[in-house]
């Protein structure tokens, strides 16, 4: 007799852990099955070089839902978010642009470059605040199906429509622009300073296969602003011990609620009988039974690999095959013997405790995208650099440092394919680009880990290395994520559910997909 559970969660990523915790708290007997020896999916901390710990993939937390932090009492389980304050942009002329958390300091610094932008910035911030406030409730909402006449869908659409009506004309129009425009174009309406526009636009391209001049990139800009409206709540920053410690905190909360978590337990396939999920078969041959099976994996694996596609309607199979992943980013993790010394701000200083953005101009970003469009990695990539050991000294041996560089673009589909040599060439492009701004960097490197989208896919299982489990493009959001009619965490197979970032509201260490899926499952089982 296979071991029986109320619910089985496939994959130990943060969304599945969140779902497991909510289900366990509701009294369900649940098990989480993770293929790797550690939980977290793309939110893991690993000691890649002895004494040097890295948030190997996902490296900052910005959108973790406050209600999850509260419901699961995550601070009691180890959640500790440390402030990551500034963003400094080294410029090609040897100067820099600094965006600091103190408003006076930030305004003065901006005014040095553009007095007009210095005054526009807080106004832009206020608009983004209102936009984010408008969009935020949607994060906590199961997407209604706009084509359905079911009462729950109609109610959802009414809430949705009422919500937008309440915005007023001006903000509604701004929202519409954000939803459709290119971030560079949108920012042109506000600012004149190229490096400022580039740096703000950069948050609109992270994780997507879009450039700053691609329509739709403005929405991703907004997506990243959402973390900031909980400003005082401070759910964004750097997790002590790296992002793996967030996964551990959620896992600890799940265990405390009674959930079982098994690592090195890869799921081979979901067992289906008479159109109903009945359990899973593990790689070891062991079978586990449960009336509810929840996949935390991305839509391609959930629909096309874990179940026999013959069990699914043909249109669903086709639509999932068309779902866009197209991983576009890589990561370079460096172990350093000394701090990088930036020519624009020599010596140690507060800038080394914040983000360093390699985004000197909009053209620079667009050129980086041009390389990727035609199947090459960017020769001079956009980078979001952080030195986590400056914030949490425990990440490296005393006096030594770890540097994390999120790099774009590194297309999954590289001309000629990724190889060890191509990976190292990509790593060289990253180090050489950084060395232009911090010449001592190459000599300080003790260890170097270069991660391409192919590596992300190989290690975490994320299809095509897309960090969001599928692009955050408007065509793949809300009631379209991952599919029209299957955006409510269900699948065409009864008892088989999805809870990963490939469902609404999607990527980042947010946990919202996991929570909404669990609440939907619990609602279903009550009926």
């Amino acid at each position, binding site marked *: 007799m296979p071991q029986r559970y109320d619910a089985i969660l496939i994959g130990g990523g943060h969304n599945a852990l969140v779902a497991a915790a909510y289900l366990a708290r509701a009294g369900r007997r649940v098990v989480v099955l993770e293929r790797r020896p550690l939980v977290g999916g793309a939110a893991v901390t690993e000691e890649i070089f002895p004494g040097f710990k890295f948030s190997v993939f996902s490296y900052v937390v910005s959108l973790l839902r*406050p209600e999850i932090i*509260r419901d699961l009492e995550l*601070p009691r389980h180890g959640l500790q978010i440390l402030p990551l*304050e500034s963003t400094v942009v080294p410029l090609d002329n040897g100067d820099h642009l600094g965006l600091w958390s103190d408003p006076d300091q930030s305004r003065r610094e901006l005014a040095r470059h553009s007095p007009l932008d210095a005054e526009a910035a807080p106004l832009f911030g206020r608009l983004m605040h209102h936009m984010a406030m408008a969009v935020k409730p949607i994060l906590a909402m199961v997407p209604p199906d706009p084509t359905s006449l079911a009462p729950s869908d109609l109610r959802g659409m009414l809430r949705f429509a009422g919500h937008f009506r309440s915005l007023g004309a001006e903000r509604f129009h701004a929202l519409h622009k954000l939803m459709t425009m290119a971030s560079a174009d949108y920012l042109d309406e506000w600012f004149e300073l190229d490096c400022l526009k580039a740096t703000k636009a950069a948050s609109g391209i992270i994780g997507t296969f879009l450039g700053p001049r691609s329509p739709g990139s403005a929405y991703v800009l907004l997506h990243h602003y959402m973390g900031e409206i909980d400003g005082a709540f401070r759910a964004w920053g750097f997790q*002590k011990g790296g992002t793996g410690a967030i996964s551990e905190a959620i896992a600890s909360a799940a265990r405390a609620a009674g959930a079982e978590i098994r690592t090195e337990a890869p799921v081979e396939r979901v067992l289906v009988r008479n159109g109903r999920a009945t359990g899973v078969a593990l790689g070891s041959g062991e079978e586990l039974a449960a009336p509810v099976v929840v996949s935390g994996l991305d839509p391609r694996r959930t629909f096309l690999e874990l179940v026999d596609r013959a069990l699914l309607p043909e249109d669903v199979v086709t639509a999932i095959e068309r779902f866009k992943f197209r991983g576009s980013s890589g990561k370079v993790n460096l172990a350093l013997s000394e701090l990088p010394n930036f020519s624009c701000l020599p010596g140690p200083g507060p800038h080394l*405790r914040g983000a360093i953005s390699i985004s000197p101009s909009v053209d620079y970003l667009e050129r980086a995208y041009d390389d990727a469009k035609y199947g090459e990695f960017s020769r001079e990539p956009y980078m979001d650099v952080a030195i986590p050991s400056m914030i949490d*000294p425990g990440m490296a041996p*005393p006096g030594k440092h770890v540097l994390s560089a999120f790099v774009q673009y590194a297309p999954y589909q590289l001309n000629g394919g990724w190889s060890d040599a191509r990976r190292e060439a990509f790593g060289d492009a990253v180090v050489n680009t950084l060395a232009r701004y911090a010449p001592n960097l190459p000599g300080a490197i003790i260890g170097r880990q270069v991660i391409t989208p192919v590596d992300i896919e190989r290690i975490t299982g994320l299809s095509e290395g897309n960090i969001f489990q599928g692009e955050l493009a408007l065509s793949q959001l809300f009631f379209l994520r991952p599919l029209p009619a299957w955006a409510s965490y269900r699948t065409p197979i009864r008892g088989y559910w999805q809870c990963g970032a490939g469902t609404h509201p999607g990527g980042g260490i947010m946990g919202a997909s996991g929570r909404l899926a669990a609440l939907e499952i619990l609602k279903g089982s009550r009926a």
Partner: protein
Amino acid sequence: MLKTTPFHSRTAPLVQGQAWRRWAGYMVASAYELLHEREYAAIRNSAALLDVSPLYKYLVTGPDAVRLLDRMVTRNVTKCGLNQVMYTTWCDVRGKVIDDGTISRLGERQFRLTSAEPNLRWLSLNAAGLDAAIEEVSERIGALALQGPLSRAILAQLCDADLAGLKYFRLLQTTARGIPLTISRTGYTGDLGFELWVDASRAVELWDLLVQAGTAYGITPAGIWALDLARIEAGLVMLDVDYHSAQHALIPAQESSPLELGLEWTVSWDKGPYNGRSALRAERERGAAWRLAGLAVDWESLESLYREVGLPPQLPGIAWRTSVPVYRGGRQIGYASSGCWSPLLKQFLALAHLQAPHFAPGTPVRFELTVEHRRLQADARVVKLPFYDPARKRA
């Protein structure tokens, strides 16, 4: 002009926003950086370096030093071993708290008392007929608090003493690169931490040593704003904020007993006579009328009050210290005396004085909240103190 501490030549250049606070006639940094967030984070994440020199410090020596202190304070000082530190309150004869502080046994017949306010007169009055010398050493000794999970690792760079063996509320004498030093495993943050007591003439040298040894461990000078957040999370009361000295109270309602402050554990019931003993015994018999308790404000309730005016909750960045009414069943049953938004626990917390019987953990109460100039009430509940108590504090 306010006085400056022995560390002033080092701290002053670091205070970016000229944010100073008065403390016992001294000026100490409220915050060194423009925002105190990182200074607070250091207390819970790496190590914060705090100048606590303004504490009043008295050396009590002589054959009757134990008797003097034991007669004065509520704790049983006869049980204080060599190199032990005791936190205690002391009361007037009516059992109302005058002050609170620590007693360190530096020698068989030598103690150091720290306090928030001047206590030379009260010590002298209590010393009547006893063979004990009292000397105020406040200005002679510089005091630093090194608080946070990496504080021990930093000190270990500087001295050979057995820091791993130094238990909570114990002290040791050592030298750090030639500077004579007393290290006590004490603090006002509720975290792993130490307080360092050094001759004022060598204070600056010690500061420099610590900063040098601590840089690789993220040592961060921290001001009073950061400390205030940590002490509220740790549920530690502050004189003149959470209670008033019985020697300054103008009316009885302004006074508090140790029982009312939740400090019953510092009161010895079986030792010999001391100030306030019979009053405290009687109070224990009938039960305290008030008690200091923790309050956690319910987030959903807070959020809904702000949502009505179209705002996300506006949370205080620094700890507040104004009196806030607390209600139950439509009637005021107490007041909060200080509180903060805990950056670590992600909770809106307060220390509150509640009337019996409303102080049992779990009791639902209402907390007055001013939202856009309107006085409203948010749901809150009584929670056990301390709010935050990491294992490493004692481990």
